[in-house]
């Protein structure tokens, strides 16, 4: 195996390990920020890992009458998330799986995860599961146009919808980052990130009221190691969304060449970016309340508008 190829593989391995180990820490960081703003002490950065360790030791339970779908869903969701992590440019743009890192392919893979959890929600046979499933998948469906149109706006200038080349192009021409098209696309995609990650004001990840849940309601029946997989999966999902957003709109520091130095820098920059974005997201949640479910389409229509504006302004403002 030749040098560069070997290093690109190493890069991907680092990337996957970094995300898997770091995702729970990101969740912890967001909780911690929030706790501090509320005047609490907070459970500390290690807590999610402690939770996962304990859940892995506990007994999994399948509801009566459920099928293999229920037990397979967390595995499918997690593996699709891991595939995305291995493909997309987080610390390096030179993944051997680069051909999976097409914008639409990644969006669809994210959707595969949501669909798996949605089916699991139905499969539990409880009213909450069905409710959460219906809401999750509806939000995901309405977010789809924004994702693709905003991606369209980004890819118009590059002439490719491959995430790696999007990032590389943005690195080559930094002035592009400050163009109205990019900024509008950034706004649109941020809204989608919030919706897809199930954060406020779309969904409240910390709620205990089943009737207000969107994503949580599909996971109510999971226990033990299944639950661990589900929580790890959603943490990784959040990391993917934030990391991707960060790299598309603040492309600096991502390794385009696979030298050890570049990789190290990539890791460092990635950690900083995701930490800052996560802290911002967590802090912003102190200031908002959850919206009614039927105001969420308003939010998504707005993000779609931003997407269209981004595309059209990439004609006349660039």
């Amino acid at each position, binding site marked *: 195996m030749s040098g560069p190829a070997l290093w690109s593989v190493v890069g991907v391995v680092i990337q996957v390990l970094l995300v898997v180990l770091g995702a729970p820490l990101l969740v912890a960081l967001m909780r911690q920020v929030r*706790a*501090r*703003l*509320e*005047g*609490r*002490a*907070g*459970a*500390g950065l290690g*807590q999610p890992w*402690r*939770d996962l*360790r*304990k859940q892995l*030791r*506990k*007994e*999994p*339970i399948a509801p009566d009458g459920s099928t293999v779908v229920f037990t397979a869903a967390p595995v499918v969701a997690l593996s699709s998330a891991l595939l995305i992590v291995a493909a997309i440019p987080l610390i390096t743009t030179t993944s051997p799986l680069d051909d999976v890192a097409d914008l639409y392919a990644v969006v669809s893979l994210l959707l595969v995860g949501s669909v798996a959890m949605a089916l699991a929600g139905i499969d539990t046979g409880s009213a909450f599961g069905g409710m959460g499933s219906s809401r999750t998948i509806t939000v995901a469906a309405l977010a789809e146009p924004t994702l693709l149109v905003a991606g369209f706006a980004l890819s118009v200038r590059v002439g490719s919808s491959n995430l790696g080349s999007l990032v590389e192009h943005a690195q080559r021409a930094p002035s592009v980052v400050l163009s109205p098209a990019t900024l509008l696309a950034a706004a649109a995609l941020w809204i989608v990130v919030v919706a897809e990650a199930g954060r406020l004001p779309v969904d409240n990840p910390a*709620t*205990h*009221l*089943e009737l207000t*849940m969107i994503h*949580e309601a599909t996971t*109510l*029946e*999971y*226990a*033990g190691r299944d*639950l661990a997989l589900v929580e790890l999966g959603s943490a990784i999902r959040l990391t993917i969304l934030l990391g991707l957003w960060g790299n598309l709109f603040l492309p600096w520091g991502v390794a385009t060449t696979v030298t050890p130095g570049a990789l190290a820098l990539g890791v460092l920059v990635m950690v900083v970016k995701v930490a800052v974005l996560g802290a911002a997201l967590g802090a912003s949640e*102190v*200031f908002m309340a959850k919206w009614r479910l039927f105001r969420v389409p308003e939010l998504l229509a707005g993000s779609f508008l931003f997407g269209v504006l981004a595309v059209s302004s990439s004609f006349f403002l660039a």
Partner: protein
Amino acid sequence: MRGILRKIQKVGRVAEPALPVDLSGRQGDEMFGGSIQVRHVDAGSCNGCEVEITSAFGPVYDLERYGVRLVASPRHADVLLVTGPVTRNMVDPLRKAYEAMPAPKRVVALGDCARNCGVFAGGYGVHGAVGDVVPVDVEIPGCPPEPEAIISALRGLSGR
């Protein structure tokens, strides 16, 4: 928004320093390893205990800092936190909640009513103490118990 910011600045940190607690006499739950999820069941309480639970999880005592979290579903829970004497209508739900939890699991009877029906003993609607319905592992005396008591009991379980 600006108002909230100003408030945050003014209030600052209200959580009191962690209470010294001896984890020597704890119920030996290595396996929870500093993380317990709690499902709370009100089996017929007068809500005095609920008030104390709320303040225990509130910013001042901040029970969450010891890795204790309230959860919505017993499937996610390690500890069943039961308050009040078990009324007739709550016998079945309480049992169901216990069965719904994944092993290993612990039951905490919080407050005198939960331990021995307290002042409600012999009431026509009262079925009995929590112990009569599900196996109790930890009892927190008091009517209602102070947040410190609740915290030290739960820390005993979480081991943090």
